[in-house]
């Protein structure tokens, strides 16, 4: 038997439902199998909420529909598929996008802040407060150490030479804008993103 896509399947299923009197002739799949497959699909996303997202990988910008469900007060991600209404991808996804759910629900996440002391052979789990306090002190110390208020020609330049920030091709634009604003305000001149590399 030839394989059919889920979308074709849904169409066929819908046609079958609409033309009950014509079954099984109007349904090349055979009625029983179709009903079983349709039920399986329905069960997976039955009662689920549709939420709109985007693919996290390349910059085609494929629109996604994510299906979620509240289970015991927790939002569970059931499925991700391409948004058929998008003028960009028209519902299609590549292997990476189609596997986006595995990135979203990865069991390999770093689950708490980790600190590695100078010379140490190990990570140590630490609290956010420990990390952010220590980092704030580092940033201030490095800024104060490397800050140039005036250059050799007497020009006001107000720059921090000893701290660099790089990132942002994978997070939202608004996060990136906020990063730029904070980093420039700290005087940072080495600020870079994936665009050049």
């Amino acid at each position: 038997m030839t394989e059919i896509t889920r979308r074709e399947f849904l169409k066929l299923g819908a046609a079958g439902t609409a033309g009950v009197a014509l079954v099984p002739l109007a349904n090349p799949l055979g009625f029983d199998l179709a009903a079983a497959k349709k039920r399986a699909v329905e069960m997976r996303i039955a009662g689920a909420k549709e939420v709109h997202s985007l693919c996290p990988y390349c910059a085609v910008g494929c629109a996604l529909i994510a299906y979620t469900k509240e289970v015991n007060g927790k939002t569970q991600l059931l499925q991700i598929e391409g948004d058929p209404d998008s003028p960009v991808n028209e519902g299609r996804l590549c292997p990476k996008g189609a596997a986006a759910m595995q990135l979203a629900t990865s069991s390999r996440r770093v689950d708490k802040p980790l600190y590695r002391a100078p010379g140490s052979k190990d990570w140590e789990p630490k609290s956010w407060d420990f990390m952010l306090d220590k980092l704030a002190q580092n940033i201030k110390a490095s800024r104060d150490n490397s800050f140039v208020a005036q250059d050799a020609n007497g020009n006001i330049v107000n720059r921090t030479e000893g701290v660099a920030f790089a990132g942002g091709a994978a997070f939202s634009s608004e996060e990136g804008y906020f990063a730029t604003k904070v980093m420039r305000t700290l005087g940072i001149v080495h600020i870079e993103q994936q665009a050049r590399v």
Partner: protein
Amino acid sequence: MTNHWRDIKHADVILINGANPAEAHPVGFQWFVKAKLDPTKGPGGGGGAKIIHADPRYTRTSALADMYLRIRTGTDVAYFGGLINYVLRNNLYHEEYVRYYTNASFLVKEGFAFTDGLFSGYDKATRSYNTSTWVYETEGDPLPGPAGTTQAHAKRDMTLGHPRSVFQLLKNHYARYTPEMVSSITGIPVDQFNAVAQIVGEMGKPDKVMTIVYAVGLTHHTTGGQLIRSGALLQLLLGNMGRPGGGMNAERGHANIQGNTDHAISWEILPGYLRIPAPGQKTLDQYVAASAAKKSDPNSWNFFGTNYKNFMVSLLKAWYRGAAQPANEFAFDFIPKPAVNSSWMSIYDQALKGKMEGVILNGMTATSIGPDSNQVLQGLSKLKWLVIMDPLPTTSSEFWHAPGMDPSNIQTEVFMLPTTHWIEKDGSFVNSGRWSQWKEQVIPPEGDARHDHWIFADLFDRVKTLYRQQGGKFPDPILAMTLDYADTKKPTLDEIAREVNGKDLNTGLQMTSFANLKADGTTTAGDWIYTGSYTPAGNLMKRRSGISDPAKNDPTGMGFYPNWAWSWPLNRRVMYNRASADLAGKPWDPKRPGIQWNGTAWVGDVPDYPVNMDPKDPAAWLPFIMNGEGVGRLFSNSMNDGPIPEHYEPIEAPIPNPLHPNQSEDPVAFLYDQAAGRPNRFGKVDKYPYVATSYRLTEHEHYVTQHVPLLVGLQPQAFVEVPQELADEKGIKNGDRVRVSSERGKLEVAALVTKRLGPMTLAGNTKVYHIGIPIHWGFVGISTERYPELAKNWLANALTPFVGDANARTPEFKAFLVNIEKIS
């Protein structure tokens, strides 16, 4: 992209260079295939297009192309230059477009020259040009410029016959790019090149249109900037810029690389491509005078230059509201002024010199990205502290215990801050086509992970508290930064999106257009090119009127879908679209209109032009409103290595440059090691006889997918592609382990013996092989855990040279020399 993904279906010809969309952007590639195949549209309307793919490697893109050309990596200036020569020599350019829409008619001042591979003004000691001869001849009264500056009127010869007209200079420059010369540089056989030239030459007819699509296969070279400019020149000559189905289209490789370039996570700019101020600029007017384009024709609007100060002041008001006042130049002093280039490689260069104390890597892993991963690892080892913000471990978070590193010798303090995934927060992603699409939060943050922007806000708050308590160097901007959010430690992305758009401080209303921004401090705009994205009507990036109702949602039928998301600038879908219509405002091709003049207004796409400006009015603006000339620049003095693109060899090249062997490589390419007093580590053909290039596979995205089991299952192990003939010469069989080495490092991986790569013949009968290197593996991820013994030397960028493009300082990831040997 000047255009957008869906628009590619409107092309008659698609030139693909330095890109492999079928594998790297598979879903975008559907529009290429539709251009070729959609039978309902017919030629020119989305059917019958020809795809021409030039690439060292025969890929799935090549398989669907009408013509595949095996081109040597990094030689596309010669290829485009050859096409430019063919078009000029045979008068196949778009005559009216070239005359009125480009600077072909502008005269260049006497003294400009190009001799033996060098333009006039080169200084060998500093490896840089004095560009004072790369300017127009002027006449008449000076024209008023921004911030009280003036610029003289450029002299034009509308016959294009003057020997110093840009047109004649171009003709002369590219006369050297004969099919034989192109072939000897690129390796493309002459007959194949001629066949392409014939097809491309047809595209100068007004009712034909070609698009050029490229990716990092063009940018990752020491000549990257000029590689792209050479394509743009061809497009201007053919009259294809600004038109549906045309343009220069960069396929970008990360979900939001476009949005966060726009928002200036880039050393040389502020949001909206405003230049970072330079030392010596004391006032806003001095900054604008040095940064903004100036008019060189009375009919040039010079919109960007004219509004530069409005945009800059509105940015300063967004960042430092009350502290930014006319009396202090709107806090202009708060913006840091770099002395020298501070781009990606400079960070690690400074670290090697011991001048960089701390680095924050946010969703980027320096070790894998490179170039020259071993040198980057040394740089990271010299830092006092390193922060990794990522949901998953990276080769940078784990650098201190990487294979071959001794943790006890590394004094770098490392902070791993677990951040949320894209799906755990809302906000916009901007795709290659500049469409800013809003996503919703789907699931809550996992475990202890925090949003990136909340980490910045919290850290900033703690730093600010320290400055308040202890004082320190110039705390003023830190204390003054506007935090107009309900919770200053947890700003919402909705609040930030409103700030990016900007508002009128008198009325409190969101701005609707950047045309209304002011320099008097009464308006804000965090990024002027996004002004109009979040208006009193709401967040337009959230719109989703899609293809389920084309009659309603795509009123022009041109695939603009104006109510799907929002694209900058001002929801315009094709940039420079005034150039899609002739002088009278009629579309060059009525089947594929961008905008058109209906007698009272410009209709179609959002016009890149005043909506009611009659094109027949003698005072009507020239078509390209964003630059000083008002027309497309075939000749430009904004590049560091020449006003006209010239072919230079990669820093590591298999042959001397056939055009000028004594000036083989780009004379301005930046040699980081040499400039820092370290020895250059470049290889020569005697030890490293093979050309290498690097790329991505469909199943992986850079390095993050090493954590995705399904994708690792599809592409489990590091490998290199080796051409069959070379494998035979070397006794390498498919699956053998091989060592690929460069002057900087080595890679030990499996060999995939293939016919996708093959020998090519270059100048003087030199036979050259390419070796293909997928970039995705390192010492972190599922594969590495499964094959720890095999995975010790899997970093592709251990091989790449630490050298930067003459203009953008982009590393030369895509062309370098290696050797290969079987590991017995």
